């Protein structure tokens, strides 16, 4: 068990190190970092000060260590746009993103898992096809099209909900729906195939032969076993939602991390981009680590495999 955890932790740390190194490398590859970060119109003494602070005249390996030193102290530099420390800017945008990502994740789980399970129980019927068709729609329709479609219907035509911005809880409804629908589609599809596989297992037939009511068999034998691999998909979905949030926040002018990233990329505010990259890497790696550990705890066979 401890070996399992340690191994996963090591891999997680390695991934974060790789991501930070990746950012370091491409920043150097993109040209003189002082030009990239400060922009082409920066006054020469600002450039000189920047080069001094980042140690750009020192050998590359020393720069790499200084880079890590900065990160571990929470110093990602200052934003090009308003000069504030980048970490503060980025952290201030996190609550807004969590406001839509949290409910969206819950919505995906609430719709996707029951939907997929329902479809699996009624395989090859009209209900199954309908649920599967909806889920295919969920991941072929891009989030910006879905979001704009919802805006068109609910804001422009019906005037029921605001078209964007972050004022009052009603403005969060459309973004959450847009983010959540894509996730629900993925979850539904996955839950359906996991459930279908479980339903074909001998122990299900044994439970039913024992005389247990069908409902009990489904609820207490089939569903929990189908949910175990589904947990791993949720880890992947966190990442997919982060990526989705980038587009959705831009569609709805929601002032979160995603929109900050888009604005920063557009104005080539590289310091902000690096910080967000780091935070996303840490989040993803943590989420996957938690999911891995959860999976190992829920399914003892995984731990047994690891122990061998």
């Amino acid at each position: 068990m401890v070996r399992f955890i340690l191994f996963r932790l090591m891999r997680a740390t390695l991934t974060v190190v790789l991501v930070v190194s990746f950012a370091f490398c491409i920043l150097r590859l993109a040209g003189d970092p002082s030009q990239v970060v400060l922009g082409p119109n920066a006054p020469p003494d600002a450039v000189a000060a920047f080069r001094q602070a980042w140690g750009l005249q020192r050998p590359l390996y020393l720069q790499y260590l200084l880079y890590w030193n900065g990160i571990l102290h929470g110093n990602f530099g200052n934003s090009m746009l308003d000069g504030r420390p980048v970490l503060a800017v980025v952290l201030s945008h996190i609550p807004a993103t969590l406001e839509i990502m949290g409910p969206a994740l819950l919505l995906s789980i609430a719709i996707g898992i029951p939907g997929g399970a329902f479809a699996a129980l009624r395989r090859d019927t009209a209900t199954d096809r309908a649920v599967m068709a909806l889920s295919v729609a969920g991941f072929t329709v891009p989030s910006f099209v879905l979001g704009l479609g919802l805006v068109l219907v609910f804001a422009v035509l019906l005037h029921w909900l605001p078209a964007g911005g972050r004022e009052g809880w009603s403005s969060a409804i459309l973004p959450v729906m847009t983010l959540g629908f894509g996730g629900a589609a993925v979850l539904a599809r996955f839950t359906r195939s996991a459930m279908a596989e479980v339903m074909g297992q001998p122990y299900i037939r044994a439970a039913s032969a024992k005389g247990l009511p069908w409902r009990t068999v489904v609820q207490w034998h089939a569903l929990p076993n189908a949910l175990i691999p589904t947990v791993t998909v949720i880890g992947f979905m966190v990442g997919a939602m982060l990526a989705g949030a980038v587009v959705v926040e831009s569609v709805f002018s929601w002032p979160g991390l995603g929109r900050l990233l888009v604005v920063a990329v557009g104005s080539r505010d590289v310091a902000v981009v690096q910080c967000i990259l780091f935070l996303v890497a840490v989040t993803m790696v943590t989420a996957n680590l938690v999911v891995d550990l959860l999976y190992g705890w829920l399914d003892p066979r995984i731990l047994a495999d690891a122990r061998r």
Partner: protein
Amino acid sequence: MSGIALPRVIRRREAIGLAVGAALLWLALMLVVAVFADLLRPYSITAIDLGHRLAPPLSFGGTLTHPLGTDELGRDVLSRLIISIRVSLLLAFGATLLGLLMGTSLGLLAAHLGGLVEQAVLMLVDFQAALPFMILALAVLAFFGDSLPILVGLMSFYGWERHARVARGLALAAGAQNYVAAIRGLGAGAWRIYLRHVLPNIAATLVVSATLAFPEVILLESGLSFLGLGVQPPMSSLGNMVGYGRNYIETAPWILLAPSIVIVFTTLAISIVGDMLRDRLDPTTSRA
């Protein structure tokens, strides 16, 4: 349907479904539009017609001069749509192909050489799978700018890790087969083994992997272009048409509806065809 001579792979077992037929028709249409774009479009994509700005499409009060309406500068939406289809499809096709080549090569390399090379490739695969690609793509665009070669190069990195995993797994399995041992015993070199013997056998699965990646590349490109960070004006892609049309969602929704519908139908069509191919070419996958 019975009068049309369908290729053997489709005629087998059951009749081709309605959905797959419609999907293939749509894709054929898109292909024709992409190839003959310059002949089909009635106007240039930059032709400004200030007298007919924001004209609605045909059945909503428009005229035949602009069947799908015009945008805020009077540019014909149909012409821009036609060129956008070509741009988006070309980019997605090129990127998918490059990604397939890169992923397959790395996967085969890892399988053949093993050891450190294999570990390095697996580490790269893990790294790519660890972050959502959109975030990585945005970071690269921030550092390098958004010129077209960078965009294509960036998109070709999408999905390579899936192809590499598949190629490596299949190559390892194939390498354990008797026919590979036989050829090796006859003195065949590595190149010959992989190109003439292993690759044709694993090609089917790789093709399926590519058809799964292709719609996702289209969605990635249109998402980036929608954000204004992908294809740049004056070039027009499906994504950036939606991006520009977004500002007129209340007054002229047709500007963004036309490209949106094309994106949805095209990715849907490719997914349906990909599913069909997977069912027919890869007998190892069970239909859940």
